[in-house]
């Protein structure tokens, strides 16, 4: 199933060829279809993402991927994996660039995702053959492929010394567009992204910011009002609070002035209805388009 494309091949991605040191050979898994490289967006970010990062990745990527843009990322856990997953979920295509030999699933616990990418017309690519193990130096090497394949790079969350900043640097070096997601100034995981904005990266507040760059159009955005139909007062005030920020049940209980016992049952029901989501002890709104489509 593994194939290889040489740089001399006509099918070799055009954008990648333009970078200073393109890989001589690209090993791949999946079916090679030159179309997949037409409009690529690199989505990178921290391994240790926050809930915010996961939520934003899900929100942005599912809309961008649904509009037909290929999502390229590094198959690491964290933002990378979330980006791949969001792309698959919305029926889009995605490319995973591996920092290791083409036969290695790294990290191994994401094997399910690995297979899913291949099964859904995606690609796994690497410049290393067989079972070449990942090393410290292969990650930054891999990043040049991620940035090189894409017209633009989106950094969702990055710490001060995140590896995603290497990809961001490369993007600028290759003279491609760099997008960054704003985050809270106090969050350690937003230090890198906020700095990128300061240095001139494009601010992303919705998927349309990126889609406009690609000249693509997003699917109709979620009608907010639809949400409010048939909700009771408590549900409405919960949503109002969560729209501002995700919070723990204790904090929410103070905000909506309702005892936890009562709030807990409401949240359970809302969760079952798919209105809110929960993770890392916090509740947040589940307003991805796919939920309401």
């Amino acid at each position, binding site marked *: 199933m593994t194939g290889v494309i040489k740089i001399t091949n006509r099918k070799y991605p055009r954008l990648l060829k333009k970078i200073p040191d393109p890989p001589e050979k690209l090993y791949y898994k999946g079916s090679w279809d030159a179309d997949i490289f037409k409009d690529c967006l690199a989505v990178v970010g921290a391994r*240790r993402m926050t809930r915010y990062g996961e939520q934003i990745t899900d929100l942005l990527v599912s809309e961008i991927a649904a509009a037909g843009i290929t999502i390229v990322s590094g198959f690491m856990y964290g933002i990378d994996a979330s980006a791949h997953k969001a792309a698959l979920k919305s029926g889009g295509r995605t490319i995973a660039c591996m920092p290791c030999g083409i036969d290695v699933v790294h990290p191994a616990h994401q094997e399910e995702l690995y297979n899913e990418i291949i099964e859904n017309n995606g690609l796994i690519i690497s410049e290393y053959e067989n079972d070449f193990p990942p090393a410290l130096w292969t990650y930054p090497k891999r990043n040049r492929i991620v940035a090189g394949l894409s017209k633009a790079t989106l950094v969702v969350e990055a710490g001060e010394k995140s590896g995603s900043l290497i990809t961001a640097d490369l993007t600028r070096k290759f003279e491609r567009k760099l997008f960054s997601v704003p985050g809270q100034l106090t*969050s350690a995981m937003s230090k890198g992204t906020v700095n990128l904005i300061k240095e001139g990266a494009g601010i992303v507040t919705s998927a349309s910011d990126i889609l406009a760059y690609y000249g693509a159009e997003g699917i109709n955005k979620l009608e907010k009002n639809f949400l409010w139909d048939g909700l009771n007062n408590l549900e409405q005030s919960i949503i109002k609070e969560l729209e501002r920020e995700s919070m723990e049940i204790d*904090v929410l209980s*103070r905000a909506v002035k309702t005892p936890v*016992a009562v709030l807990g049952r409401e949240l*359970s*029901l809302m969760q*079952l209805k798919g209105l809110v989501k929960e993770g890392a002890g*916090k509740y947040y709104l589940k307003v991805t388009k796919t939920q309401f489509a």
Partner: protein
Amino acid sequence: MLIKVCSVANSGLKTIGIDVEVNVASRGLPAFEIVGLPSKAVAESKERVKTAIVNSEIEFPQRRIIVNLAPADVPKEGSCYDLPIAIGILSLVMGCELPEKSLFYGELSLDGTLRHTKGTLLLALFAKEKKFTNIFVPKASANEAAIIKDVNVYPIENLKQLLDYCTGQIEITPAEYRESEEDTVSVEFDMAEVLGQEQAKRALEISASGGHNFFMVGSPGAGKTMLARALPGILPPLAEKESLEVTKIYSASGRIPPEGTLVKTRPFRAPHHTISQIGLTGGGSKPQPGEISLAHRGVLFLDEFNEFPRSVLEALRQPMEDGSLSISRSRERVKYPARFILAASANPCPCGYLYDPKRMCSCTQREIERYRKRVSGPILDRIDLHVEVPVVDVEHLSRFEPTQKNLTSSGQIRKRVKKARDLQQNRFKEETIHTNSEMKNRHIKKYCRLSAEVKQLLIQAVKQFHLSARSYFKMIKVARTIADLENSSEITINHMAEALQYRPRVKTE
């Protein structure tokens, strides 16, 4: 000349009668032997008895004395045979009769006084069951034995006093049971002292009401330990029957102090995570109760749950299910009750700051996974209430000052808990169980009828949240307790929805 003195041997919580046969031969070289599988402590009793008799200003007979502890094949241990051996010898030498239908039990000191001896409560229970009318025990242990009515408990100060009583020179009045004077629950923390953590407090209330195990996960400093230590303050007092059960365990393991009384407050045991498996479950060649049995009818608090060796935690599985633990050794098999509320707490990751909004977690994904895997699924599955305890933002809390002042105190919660427990007591009056958490599937069928609507909600939740079959029943039990707290005979959608809040979060995908 031969005399038979009755005494007992305790094996676990079971008591068997022992005949202490003393023979003082008129012929043969002077000797003093004890036979009948005596342990070291029993064999050494020779020297204590001899010296105690001499120090009581009675001449020790220079005759051939053989003591047999019958039945001869049951191993005997402990120092409780000092008194029957000594009084047996004395009655033969002095030619006095011993009172009939009497049990003798106690350890001698070298000066002839009697020392506090463990297990007198079990002795008194045995006496009552086997229709012995009198028991003679050390004075310091008499109050403990006097818990049991219908048996004359004679508090004995020293050997001389007992001898004088047997020869009819003095009278000894049987001991009357005296309650301990201080009967207040001393609790480290009041619930009102814990800021924020409303959900965790609610979970504790449910836990106390239905006897449910609970598991708290949260960063260091979130208040997990404080919450767990506040739990005893909201538990209802021990019922009379429960109190006796607990006292029996404490008596058997020698944990009742001199002049001890019934254990009235629920035990709270918090062993450190370096505990051995035997220490937790009980055991040893002479099986002793472990922490789980000492926590019977109370709370077993395991702080830093993930730091406990896996083998130690796995040993909890069966007792958590059965409420008791049988310890089998080659020579004996004992069963200790172990019906406790398991209160566990853990950090979300090795460094502790995984979900902390202010601090960076320094663990890798793998480290976190390895850390979580230390507690097995089956153990987590046996825990009814799972709560996340976030770090309290003090600044945020201070904005809610007015509501902070009227925080519910432990006393108020305790009242609600008591009511819910009374409901359960009433419900299970024909069963052998006491609380909702003890319900087996047949009880659930009988006492927790779910309406179609509630059932549908639960089934949907099981699918959506990937709950196990065991969790399905746990949810019903928790919902039952929540309904009890509201004095509702029926489990409604609301009760079930709240119960779902406390489901195990296996993976949040």
